[in-house]
């Protein structure tokens, strides 16, 4: 069930230039039944003049401690206000939102996880989930701007980790697909999150290889729950909810089969 809940900050710190890791704890009574990799939450800035929740992917779910971890970049005033919170502060959150990845569908496969920049965080929970499914092999290729890496420790604990940097200071010089080619990775399926040019390249890559690609899309959102129709992506076929070639990213997504969206 989706709810607006008040969470408590149990950890917050900068993990790279302009990148923050924030862990929020549920009150016992607010615990969600299930959290899937690729799902997200709407975090409300602590600012009376900014009213909309900020969609941020779940980086890690720790059911035992009732904690959600988020990793975000300070893109504007809303995320800056979130970054200014301190341990013990309260943050309002709308969650859990979106469909998420379906690890069951990927069981037993060689799965390639691709993350670019601020698309990296959701790959951590996905890698963790996949690594628990016997016979499933995870290779992650993550793209950074430069040597100011983050979440590499977490990712490498679930499988092989390739790194690409724009400036070539670590790993492959170039983007994540350059790293994939350089290392001749031959996956059965791809899961990706990152900027649109990367996702387009991933779609093409998967098409060429004839493998499925599940990509997580971004769009400006208002409600986050499917009511406002603000956050649509163009689809190849008529969408079963909207009855036009538009699907709501917050509800039918954010994760889509790459071949089904017209990006």
């Amino acid at each position: 069930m989706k709810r607006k809940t008040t969470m408590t900050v149990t950890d917050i710190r900068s993990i790279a230039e302009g990148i923050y890791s924030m862990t929020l704890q549920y009150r016992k009574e607010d615990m969600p039944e299930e959290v899937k990799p690729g799902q997200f939450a709407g975090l409300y800035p602590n600012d009376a003049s900014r009213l909309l929740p900020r969609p941020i992917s779940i980086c890690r779910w720790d059911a035992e401690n009732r904690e959600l971890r988020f990793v975000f970049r300070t893109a504007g005033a809303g995320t800056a206000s979130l970054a200014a919170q301190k341990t013990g502060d309260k943050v309002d959150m709308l969650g859990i939102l979106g469909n998420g990845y379906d690890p069951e569908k990927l069981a037993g496969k060689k799965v390639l996880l691709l993350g670019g920049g601020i698309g990296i965080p959701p790959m951590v929970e996905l890698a963790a989930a996949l690594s628990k499914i016997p016979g499933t092999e995870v290779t992650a290729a993550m793209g950074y701007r430069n040597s100011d890496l983050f979440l590499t420790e977490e990712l490498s604990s679930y499988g092989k980790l390739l790194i690409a940097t724009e400036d070539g200071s670590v790993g492959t010089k170039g983007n994540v697909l350059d790293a994939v080619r350089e290392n001749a990775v031959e996956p059965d399926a791809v899961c990706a999150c990152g900027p649109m040019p990367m996702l387009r390249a991933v779609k093409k890559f998967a098409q060429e290889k004839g493998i499925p690609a599940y990509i997580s899309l971004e769009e400006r959102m208002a409600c986050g729950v499917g009511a406002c129709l603000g956050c649509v992506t163009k689809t190849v076929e008529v969408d079963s909810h909207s009855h036009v070639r538009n699907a709501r990213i917050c509800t039918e997504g954010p994760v889509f089969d790459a071949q089904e969206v017209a990006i």
Partner: protein
Amino acid sequence: MEKSSRRPDMSVNIAGVELKNPVMTASGTFGSGMEYSEFVNLDHLGAVVTKGVASVPWEGNPTPRVAEVYGGMLNAIGLQNPGIDVFIERDLAFLKQFDTKVIVNVCGHTEEEYLDVVERLADQPVDMLEINVSCPNVKQGAIQFGQDPKCLEEITAKIKRLAKQPVIMKLTPNVTDITVMARAAEAGGADAISLINTITGMKIDIEKRQFVLANKTGGLSGPAIKPVAVRMVWQAANAVKIPVIGMGGIASAEDAVEFMLAGASAVAVGAMNFHDPCLTQKVVDGMEQYLVRHNISAARELTGAVL
């Protein structure tokens, strides 16, 4: 002061339709109720007003369709909707399960399209129609009906001739004199008017030097517009005899009471649903508490009761 021990009467009557309380949802901010039924019990609302529906499916505008601004948001959804057939089959069927009134918001590019939808709804379980002649986000049609009193009167009259349910005309605030438009709707035979729709606005990303919305302009809603909305509701309510449904930036029960005092017979909660998905319920509860605190026996007594 003695406080009555009986609970105040929250019901209001709009054009012969008895609502259990004056709190509605604003069209386009609550889907068809389905999405928010996870957060609020729709049985507790005066009415659910659905997202605008047209005679055929509309794709709406390209994205970005929404932008946050200080104290509110801009939207240029462009009235994406699945068309009246799917709407009847799926959305009305869903809403029928609840003990609340159903108000269907109708949109169109042309007169014929409006009339088509109105006709299709004639034998449906719908309590009222709300006619959106005021969307600022569709290029062709719509807005002109809402900005020209003659057009507004004419289309109102035509819809009234066909409609089997009471008709609410929804007015745009993007006019010089709202009382002229309110009177035109009344003259055309409208059973009620609702206002305000969004005020046309714009946001530019100064770093990218481009419009934030693909549509360039969008409709401003949220707390930022409340003073303008309250003023227009007050003006309109003083200009016509038909009931006025007030909206624009309602963020609390106090705001809802303010609209009632200004002259509204009912109110609608819009963009602030996105801030707090349980807001409608809180407005209902808070309004009842206000009545108790002020020893007012019925919500309808608030209407126009500013001194």
